[in-house]
Structures are given as C-alpha cells and as structure tokens.
C-alpha cells in the first residue's frame, strides 16, 4: 500500500512569493494534518482537516491556509513568504479525527521549502 505522498519534494522560492504544497493521504484515511519542521526542531502543528472541514489550527499567521478536497487530498498554501518560512513541511494522515481516540498519524516524506 502507498503511504502518504507529498509534492513537490523540494522547492525554492523568494521572499514575498506564494507557495502551494500538496498531500495525498493513505487510502481510506479521512484526516490530514500539516506540520512545519524547522531544522533542528520537532514538527509544529499547523492545521488538521477532517472530511473537508478544519478541525484544528496551530499558532501560525493567516498567511498560512489549507483545504481538503473530496478525495481527502490536501493543499497547504503560504502567502507572502518570509525567510523564516524555510522548513520541512510534513503532511500526516489518519483514519479519524483523533478526538479522544488512540488514532495513529502516519507522516509523509515532507516538502523541503527554501525561501531566499
């Protein structure tokens, strides 16, 4: 079975530009979450989507937005890129929302974004 897939693998942008990252969850998984991992740090939660609705949001500015499509794939959009947005962006999928349930999240390989 295919795991979580993300595209592109690498991306180089300049300050002020916009970027769209894509994620396809494991087949049958309805929940997708996005994380930002800065070099040398653990992942930080950005968003969770379940059944196309936002179910959770981390402490990130409004420049970050996301959506989930009917096939449960997801996009993360970042506007007005800053140098500090350079990071590995991880997508994770799970069967359920995780509300009160031991629900495992499976991570994709990530998209490495460099902002110059």
């Amino acid at each position, binding site marked *: 079975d295919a795991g979580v897939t993300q595209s592109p693998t690498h991306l180089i942008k300049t300050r002020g530009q916009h970027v769209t990252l894509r994620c396809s969850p494991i087949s049958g998984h309805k929940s997708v979450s996005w994380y930002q991992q800065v070099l040398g740090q653990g992942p930080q*939660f950005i968003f969770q989507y379940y059944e196309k609705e936002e179910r959770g949001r981390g402490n990130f500015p409004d420049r970050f937005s996301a959506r989930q499509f009917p096939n449960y794939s997801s996009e993360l959009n970042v506007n007005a890129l800053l140098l500090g947005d350079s990071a590995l962006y991880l997508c994770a999928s799970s069967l359920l929302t995780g509300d009160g349930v031991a629900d495992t999240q499976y991570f994709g390989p990530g998209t490495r974004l460099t902002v110059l």
Partner: protein
Amino acid sequence: QKEVEQDPGPLSVPEGAIVSLNCTYSNSAFQYFMWYRQYSRKGPELLMYTYSSGNKEDGRFTAQVDKSSKYISLFIRDSQPSDSATYLCAMRTYSSASKIIFGSGTRLSIRP
C-alpha cells in the same frame, strides 16, 4: 518554558549498548505519548504509542510513561547502526484531535 523538553544530544554509543532517551513535559492533560524515529531528510516514523502511565514493549524497544513525574523514556536494547537517527518524543491530550506536541528530538548515533 516549552511544553515538551528533550535533550538534543547528540548521543553516540557503541553497537550493542542499551540506549535511554528521555523527555519531560509540563502539561498534565497529556494522555497519549509517542516516540517517532526520523532518518535524515525523511518524515517521522511512529515507533511506540502509549496511553497513560506504564510500560510498553515491542521487540528491542520499551517505552515508559511516568505521569506523576511528567517523564517519558524510550529504551533501545542491543542497539544497531541502523538505529542511528533522530528520535522525537510526542504527546497529546485526550480531546485535542491531531494537535501533537513534539520534543525537539535527540540525535542518536550507534558506532559499529
């Protein structure tokens, strides 16, 4: 103060040694505790998942949770060079959906 504290290492041990990795946390509402392994330029891979306090064993890996001390550990027995990676502790509350809080990771190197 960070919600989850983890010694960044690096930690270098000889092959076959027992490895002990630890995290402390401040939020007493955390109930689900996880350890992820992350190889260079890869996404995190779930190793162990524990609910509340106690021990859980899976092959060469043992996870321990002490909620009274707000302290979790991962032990690796008979360590192998292939265990060389960054190990991330992670945890979440009962009701906070997928908002997993990660430690900063410990870089582990097993010397052949």
